[in-house]
């Protein structure tokens, strides 16, 4: 494994010291009982910085504020309500078993561990399943308008190929409604004075004093002012880093800066290469494309996916006779058909396009055809189910999916990797907590649909508020202020970096670098990864990074609203992350979940896991030289690892 010289070294194993042992269903209770409490009167003296106002950060700020802590909240958008969680469409899982279809915490736990292809922690996942029901209670009480049945009870649907109906949803805007619930709860605390909200502020570095995370350096995006904020603890809820691929379903501003800067300050980064590629996105239409749009996975319930049998078939879809169509998912996976998990569907689509059978102007697309469903169910039913999605598709492509099949292609969607955290959600830097998509979380090597919203809210409403107290019980810590040398040094580093970006005055735009980086990552660290490709990618990323620092052009100055400068800083961090992702993908010589190493597949082309050698979490330590790998071995006491099979 370590035979690529110099790319990484292996350090001591890392252990999660906080997870209690004992029966899995009692661990969370045990931990909560063991965690120290803080008297309400003392909480006011304990300040907490929260970066991010998405489902994770928003729910945490609302809850900690309500509990009486002194919370300072930050986001880069102009309002906390715009965090990227707003874009989630499909739904949120919860083991409520309202359908009496055999669901339970245990089943949700089981599905999630299996779905993650046995690369997540049993303790964490069980806890997630356990608190999932309370999340729905909380959100309904806040006024989240979940879909209901005529009797007035909450409606559920089955999502992402699971056999029970446990997904709660609010039309195709579940993330929006959940986030608005959290946002409103935060604004209530803002009015009450327990939460200070700082919008248009971007975290550029973490301040670590005497081994503890004690604050952040942020830039006021309106004025360019570099500010320091100090506290007893810092929580990162800054979301995922899918934008390292340039094109993704993430919002334009999603970035790795907050977590990457923390990583550079000593926080371990876990499983960076685990990226989820979503099969149903609208294909790229050309060079200018800035972002990809997801079409809800639910479309696969009724749409049939196909391409022409012969490569280079340029006929219009309607002109291709039934016999010359290849419904490749139904053909290869007869029992699951079009509903195979995301990674399987994505790879299959890529494979047929690689054979030259892709459709649309770029050849990078497959049909998602509703003709049969329209015939079988009628237009009204289809309209009822997917009306707004069809509209969205038509708005973007100017094609009417009631008449011509949709075209879809996989796109980067979610990052399972993130900062390493223990059972308390604390990173390897004491006092630095990481929640939501920003941590390496509960999804292992592949996330099931409708479970990211669940995790973000579980972390923010229920888990972090219970565990952070145990850390803060030792506080307040020794006072620090802006004159502390560690603070000054961090601020200085931030300024130097900004000055450097502004002084290069090169010849290439930030976006051109970002696009090129994205292409490298998509080609070599995307749906299929090979050893040679990854080695090449590392070299290419390094070279591009060097060129970036030589010839990027950042106009304007720091002391103003400067969106080019904002992007430049983010892209600079993406370069460093990209390298680590490739290294992580390179070292993991197995296929698991979304990580598919061509060298490790079964005879029929399915992912082959190697539990013996890779049944661990890869937690990377930053060093100025090669990153150091710390392994956290995973134990499976309840769900016995089996090879996934969908045929």
């Amino acid at each position: 494994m370590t035979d690529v010289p110099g790319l990484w070294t292996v350090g001591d194993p890392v252990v999660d010291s906080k997870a209690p042992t004992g029966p899995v269903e009692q661990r969370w209770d045990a931990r909560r009982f063991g965690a120290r409490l803080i008297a309400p009167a003392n909480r006011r003296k304990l300040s907490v910085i929260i970066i991010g106002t998405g489902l994770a950060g928003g729910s945490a700020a609302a809850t900690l504020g309500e509990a009486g802590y002194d919370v300072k909240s930050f986001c880069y958008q102009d309002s906390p309500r715009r965090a990227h969680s707003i874009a989630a469409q499909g739904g949120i899982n919860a083991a409520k078993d309202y359908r009496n279809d055999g669901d339970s915490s245990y089943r949700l736990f089981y599905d999630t561990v299996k779905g993650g292809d046995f690369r997540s922690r049993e303790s964490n996942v069980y806890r997630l399943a356990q608190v999932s029901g309370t999340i729905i209670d909380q959100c309904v009480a806040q006024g989240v308008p979940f879909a209901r049945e005529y009797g007035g009870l909450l409606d559920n649907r089955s999502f992402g190929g699971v056999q029970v109906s446990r997904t709660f949803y609010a039309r195709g805007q579940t993330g929006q409604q959940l986030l608005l619930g959290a946002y409103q709860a935060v604004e209530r605390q803002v009015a009450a004075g327990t939460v200070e909200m700082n919008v248009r502020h971007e975290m550029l570095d973490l301040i670590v004093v005497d081994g503890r995370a004690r604050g952040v350096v942020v830039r006021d995006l309106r004025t360019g002012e570099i500010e320091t904020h100090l506290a007893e603890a810092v929580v990162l809820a800054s979301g995922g880093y899918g934008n390292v691929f340039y094109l993704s379903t993430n919002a334009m501003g999603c970035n790795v800066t907050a977590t990457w800067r923390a990583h550079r300050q000593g926080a371990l980064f876990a499983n960076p290469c685990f990226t989820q590629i979503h099969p149903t996105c609208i294909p790229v239409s050309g060079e200018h494309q800035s972002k990809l749009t997801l079409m809800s996975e639910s479309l696969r319930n009724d749409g049939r996916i196909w391409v022409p049998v012969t490569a280079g078939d340029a006929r219009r879809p309607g002109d291709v006779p039934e016999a010359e169509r290849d419904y490749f998912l139904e053909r290869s996976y007869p029992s699951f058909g079009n509903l195979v998990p995301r990674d399987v569907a994505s790879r299959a689509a890529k494979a047929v396009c690689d054979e030259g059978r892709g459709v649309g102007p770029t050849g990078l697309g497959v049909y998602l055809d509703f003709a049969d469903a329209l015939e079988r169910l009628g237009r009204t039913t289809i309209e009822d189910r997917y009306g707004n999605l069809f509209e969205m598709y038509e708005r973007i492509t100017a094609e009417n999916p009631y008449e011509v099949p949709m075209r879809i292609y996989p796109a980067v969607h979610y990052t399972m990797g993130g900062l390493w955290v223990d059972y308390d959600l604390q990173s390897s830097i004491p006092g630095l907590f990481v929640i939501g998509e920003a941590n390496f979380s509960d999804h292992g090597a592949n996330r099931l649909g409708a479970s990211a919203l669940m995790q973000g809210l579980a972390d923010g409403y229920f888990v972090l508020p219970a565990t952070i107290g145990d850390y803060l019980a030792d506080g307040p810590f020794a006072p620090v202020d802006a004159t502390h040398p560690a603070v000054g040094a961090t601020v200085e580093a931030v300024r130097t970096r900004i000055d450097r970006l502004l002084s290069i005055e090169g010849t290439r735009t930030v976006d051109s670098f970002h696009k090129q980086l994205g292409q490298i990552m998509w080609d070599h660290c995307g749906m299929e990864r090979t050893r040679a490709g990854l080695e090449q990618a590392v070299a290419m990323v390094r070279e591009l990074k060097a060129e970036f620092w030589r010839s990027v052009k950042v106009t304007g100055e720091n002391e103003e609203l400067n969106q080019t400068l904002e992007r430049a800083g983010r892209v600079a961090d993406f370069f460093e992350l990209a390298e680590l992702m490739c290294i992580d993908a390179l070292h993991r010589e197995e296929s698991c979940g979304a990580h598919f190493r061509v060298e490790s597949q079964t005879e029929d082309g399915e992912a082959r896991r190697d539990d013996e050698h890779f049944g661990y979490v890869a937690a990377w330590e930053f060093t100025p030289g090669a990153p150091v790998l710390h392994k956290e071995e995973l134990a499976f006491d309840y769900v016995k690892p089996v090879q996934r099979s969908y045929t």
Partner: protein
Amino acid sequence: MNITLRVWRQRSPDEAGRMVAYEVSDVFPEMSFLEALDVLNEQLTLAGDDPIAFDHDCREGICGMCGVVIDGIAHGPEAATTTCQLYLRSFADGAVIDVEPWRAKPFPVIKDLVVDRSAFDRIIAAGGFVSVPTGAAPDANAVLVPKQQTDLAFDAAACIGCGACVAACPNGSAMLFTGAKITHLGLLPQGQPERSSRALAMMAQHDDEGFGGCTQIGECTAVCPQSIPLHVISRFNRDVLSALLHGERS
């Protein structure tokens, strides 16, 4: 295709702004309007000019961050569409397109097309919530809510907080935005206990921020990307009046 963008340029909140025309060539009908701005910004950057600042994030019509006035219409010519979901196929080759920021006193310009909409957050903070501490909620199915009522509440809850309603209203009123939240929470059983105080507090904040009153002109709902219906304003009025007449209980 080629287009000309006449864009409002304003360096900072205190400096005066003006319209500046830019030719943008080699754009395509499949491009989104913001992608055309991206193209222009790349040109400007390479020429050493200051690129145009504009807000955007999700680029799929849900975050509410984007929004400019295009040819005098908030979010441009297509109904029920955000700026980021607008494509160049809505414009003719050779078109001259005017691009301006939202204009309203409570939305001061920060730079170019970027405005400060924090007044909306303060309106929500005044009362746009249900007071429910984390963990205090009863079982989600303990309270039944008729489907029709949920659907109506959802129609109002779909507001993305973009501010187009204010930008389009001849009175600079934020009644559609505020009314949408009042309606969302006012239609649900969970929102009833605070219904009166919410209406009064949000009304007061709306006025304090300097938004104008509503004279039922209806431009707001016509440009609203989420088609928030006009009757949310009427519901808002009713809640305020009934709180005034009947005091705290509704």
